[in-house]
């Protein structure tokens, strides 16, 4: 048993080999995703319930339309800098701060949104990794080193996998350990979400009873299996950190889960799907495999 546990531990968190091509494609993919989801404008001119940095800084200047357009331009320049791969120990922290500030203001309105943390956290994890590697003189300034590219991938996966695991812990803590037993009641949230969508716009097409709710509530064990399966997937995603085939399998499963929730509840998880596609499905890696042969693991000190 002890030997089995040791083998499992040994298999966890391999340091992957990341080619230059894969690293370039990853930077381009992440930069594109960050830009695609970045707000076009900020309408928040107050921060009535400050969170994060808004506890210490007034961020309402971002609500000025002209200022925010200049800010967006600055963010685009920072993304291009990051995508170029030059001086990442400076570029990544700059992109991270510029990404965090507007969403901090957005979430300081007393209605926290949970769509963008996964992107900011990924940047934060990568920033820590690049600074540590720079201190160890392993980063590479004009061109990121192989060791740095491997650590950036691991750091991103760690933050994405960690975010999913945090939600599992919250479910267990806030439900007093009863989440799996009570999970069939999540079906009631289908009704809640449908009504919230309707009362936001009063569009007649949104006034309907979501299908399957009573069936799920009357078939509690099947519903528990359905909802519990998704949470189990969130709980084990981190095991795929550093792997290629397992992370592909788990990444695809997570996106199927999100698409199922979107179909049932009308809630989308596009930012999560983007991060999972880049860092777990590893789309850049599989593209790079079309023109390159895979190499072994990275040697690091």
């Amino acid at each position, binding site marked *: 048993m002890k030997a089995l546990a040791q083998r499992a531990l040994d298999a966890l968190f391999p340091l992957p080999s990341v080619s230059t091509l894969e690293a370039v494609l990853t930077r381009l993919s992440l930069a594109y995703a960050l830009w695609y989801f970045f707000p076009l404008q900020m309408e928040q001119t107050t921060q009535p319930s400050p969170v*994060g940095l808004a506890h210490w800084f007034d961020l309402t200047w971002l609500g000025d339309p002209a200022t925010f357009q200049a800010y967006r331009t600055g963010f685009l320049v920072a993304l291009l800098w990051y995508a170029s791969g030059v001086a990442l120990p400076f570029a990544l922290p700059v992109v991270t701060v510029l990404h965090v500030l507007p969403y901090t203001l957005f979430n300081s309105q007393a209605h926290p949104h949970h769509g963008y943390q996964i992107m900011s956290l990924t940047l934060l994890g990568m920033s820590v990794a690049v600074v540590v590697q720079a201190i160890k003189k392993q980063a590479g300034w004009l061109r990121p080193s192989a060791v740095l590219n491997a650590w950036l991938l691991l750091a991103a996966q760690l933050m994405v996998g960690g975010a999913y695991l945090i939600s599992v812990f919250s479910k267990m803590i806030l439900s007093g350990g009863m989440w799996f037993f009570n999970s069939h009641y999540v079906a009631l949230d289908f009704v809640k979400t449908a009504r919230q969508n309707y009362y936001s*716009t009063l569009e007649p097409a949104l006034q309907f009873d979501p299908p399957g709710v009573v069936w799920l509530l009357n078939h509690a064990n099947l519903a528990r299996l359905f909802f519990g399966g998704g949470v189990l997937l969130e709980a084990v995603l981190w095991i795929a950190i550093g792997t290629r085939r397992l992370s592909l399998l788990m990444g695809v499963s997570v996106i199927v889960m999100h698409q199922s929730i979107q179909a049932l509840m009308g809630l989308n998880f596009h930012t999560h799907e983007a991060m999972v596609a880049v860092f777990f499905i590893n789309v850049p890696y599989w593209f790079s495999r079309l023109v390159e042969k895979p190499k072994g693991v990275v040697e690091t000190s």
Partner: protein
Amino acid sequence: MPFHKRILFVSFIAFIAFSLWAKENYPFSHYPMYSDPDPTAFYHYLTDAEGKPLATYAYTGKSAAQVGKIIRTRSIERAKTLGTDAKKMPQAEWDAVCRDTLAYLHAQSQSNGTPLPVRVRIMRTDIRFEGDHVSETPRVLFAE
């Protein structure tokens, strides 16, 4: 265990522990959505003084879900200052939360150029599973 694995394990555990402690402090979150399923749920929406529903997004730029979150966040903040639990707050305190929320929504709607009616109601509908069907019971949470 190789050094890089030890670093990753420690970082991973520290990240999760810090996020659970920090709760909602962007970019950190403890992702509390759908964390405590039970046989009841509820949602909020706005109506005019006669009870006719108002499209919250069209008026205020806030969805009905966001209106509900504002009420929830403000009630938790108010309960914290009173040293109590939001569920145990006296009605007068809930009225104050709702009054402040509506003042905020009126300001948002005016800033958007789509002012809300002068008198608005906050409605709360409770959803329950009752054996073979789902019931919805609306009530006025606060009326201006």
